[in-house]
């Protein structure tokens, strides 16, 4: 679903670390010495430190979500320093699990991957919503995300960037493809690619007329759905050229014409559209799959106030539009649309009719334990001849 983003910027498989060097240690030191010298005004000074404190914000995010110009503007305005680490959903959770939620102050997993890992590993801490300017968020999206990321009455996530995955097609060569299952038709044999990951399982299930989301709570029913999908994917395997792993790999396959139909995310299709007019993103008949990337606080984060500052800063319409222009995806910021460049808006409108928007299947929270069922299916599909 989302790990594709770490590749859009040509980052490759490995997360890449960008560190900015704008330290304001001197300022902090000065405050400390004043503190020592004037014991009488300690209480007053403590207040000053709270306001002027320059923290280092260690941000674990996707490629394109923290563009250099946004980071620079934030540092100038608040005095905080931002260290950006690029990653994807699975790696974010794995990293935070390895440290028990340490090492980062703000992370951006998708909203469906928060409640499960939180229940299982306890890697996040509850969000203090009073620290956020909630009027900057699109209300429906904020409410939906709050509901989906609530564990034991605590809210763990607020929305940031959203988008969909569906079909990226060379419309001249693969006009017959309308839905995920059409990737298995003889018209496009040997020229198809998709990922061997959970979005593919979910997408195929929907296009086979099943409803995997309804079966999330029922392991037996979910296993049954997945076994039907497994049979379909095994049957479809001869049609597949290769299972793509990273965004760059897919872009190359489509660009060279080796692949004419694939399952991918919307911005990938729009990006290719600029280079090859025939290629574009198409919302499948059974509905595109919608994801929302969020902000969460890792359990052992040390700079919560800087994290809240960052959220409030990037949700401003102008800043959110800057992020949309680099990441390609729209944000949950109210009023940001008018600052987004026209080309992106045109692409979006061409791919999504009003009906297609209504038909988007938003991922509900993944209950702990489903990954194991899916994992077995994916392994068996990969091993099938």
């Amino acid at each position, binding site marked *: 679903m989302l790990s594709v983003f770490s590749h859009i910027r040509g980052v490759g498989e490995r997360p890449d670390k960008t560190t900015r060097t704008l330290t304001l240690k001197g300022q902090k030191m000065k405050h400390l010495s004043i503190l020592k010298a004037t014991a009488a005004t300690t209480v007053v000074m403590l207040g000053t430190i709270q306001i002027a404190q320059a923290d280092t914000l260690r941000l674990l995010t996707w490629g394109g979500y923290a563009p250099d110009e946004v980071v620079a503007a934030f540092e100038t305005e608040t005095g905080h320093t931002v260290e950006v680490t690029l990653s994807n959903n*699975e790696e974010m959770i794995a990293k935070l699990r390895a440290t028990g939620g340490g090492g980062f102050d703000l992370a951006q997993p998708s909203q469906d991957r928060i409640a499960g890992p939180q229940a*299982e590993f306890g890697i996040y801490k509850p969000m203090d919503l009073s620290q956020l300017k909630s009027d900057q968020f699109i209300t429906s999206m904020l409410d939906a995300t709050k509901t989906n990321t609530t564990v034991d009455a605590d809210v763990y996530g607020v929305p940031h960037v959203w988008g969909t995955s569906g079909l990226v097609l060379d419309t001249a060569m693969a006009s017959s493809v309308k839905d995920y299952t059409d990737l298995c038709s003889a018209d496009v044999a040997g020229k198809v690619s998709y990922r061997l990951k959970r979005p593919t399982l979910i997408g195929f299930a929907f296009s086979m007329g099943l409803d995997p989301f309804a079966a999330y709570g029922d392991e037996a029913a979910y296993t049954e759905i997945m076994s039907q999908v497994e049979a379909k994917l095994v049957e479809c395997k001869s049609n597949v050229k*290769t*299972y793509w792993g990273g965004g760059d790999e897919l872009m190359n396959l489509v660009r060279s014409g080796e692949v004419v139909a694939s399952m991918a995310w919307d911005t990938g299709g729009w990006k290719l559209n600029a280079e090859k007019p025939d290629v574009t993103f198409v919302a499948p008949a059974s509905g595109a799959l919608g994801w929302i990337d969020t902000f969460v606080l890792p359990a052992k984060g040390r700079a919560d106030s800087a994290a809240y500052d960052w959220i409030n800063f990037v949700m401003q319409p102008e800043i959110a539009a800057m992020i949309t222009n680099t990441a390609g995806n729209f944000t949950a910021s109210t009023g940001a649309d008018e600052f987004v460049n026209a080309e992106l808006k045109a692409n979006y409108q061409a791919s999504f009719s009003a009906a297609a928007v209504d038909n988007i299947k938003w991922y509900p929270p993944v209950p702990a*334990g489903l990954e194991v069922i899916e*994992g077995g299916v*994916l392994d068996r599909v990969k*091993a099938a001849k």
Partner: protein
Amino acid sequence: MLSHRNIGFYLLLAPLALWLILLIVIPHINLAMLSLQERVGVRQYETSFANYRTFIDEPLYIMTFARTAVMSILATTLTLLIGFPVAYYIAKMAVGRAKSVLFLLCLVPFWVSELVRTFGWMILLRETGVVSSFLQWAGLASGPVELLYNDASIMVGLVYTSMLFMVVPLVSTLDSLDNSVIEAGYDLGGSTPSILREIVIPHAMPGIVSGCIVVFMLSLGNYLTPIMLGGKDSLWFTELIYSQFIVRFNWELGAAFGFLLLFLSSVIVWAALRLSGQTLERTMG
């Protein structure tokens, strides 16, 4: 005096010991404990062998391991067959500057990262790649030829990636073989094959064994090459471990797989040493 030497000895040993204990022993103990845990509910774990049972019960995992092992053995054999003549030429036939140049040529590919090297092969072998275009240009193929995404391309990648690790130990053992011994063989009426069999190979045996062990382990533990060159049929055991840890959040099973890889690969190396009548002591010593 003795105690002095002891202190020096321990000081010299310290970096190695720290390295082994901190980076190898402790993580492995941790992994071992992890592999013996079974998830029974949210945040509830029990000690059991369930993860190891999964490996035995699910034929897919055993098949994947067997496939990885067989492919790695094949890759090792091919690397030896290609590497031996190369090493022999460098050690025995080339002289002076040519020798260093040839040796350097073996090294050059290793100046770039494995990722780049593997990507180079993708550029060559893909449907719209260099080889395919050349074949069409030369009239040997009527349409685009897909050479990527099969077992043969994985094999090419593995052999290429591990060639240096075979050539280096072979060159150093063959270098130590006195040319006069080979001459004496000819003088005594030996033919080229018999000299190779009776003199050169027995002398080079330590190099062959250590080269084979290194190449086998590198191939078995390789992750990038099978994934990038193998495409849809690439299933490799390390890939299973990676996906259990990162994609499935199933560290318990991943740890069990890690241990099985360690154990089974040690068994294979031990069996190969026994079968070929070699010992580790002789190879190293």
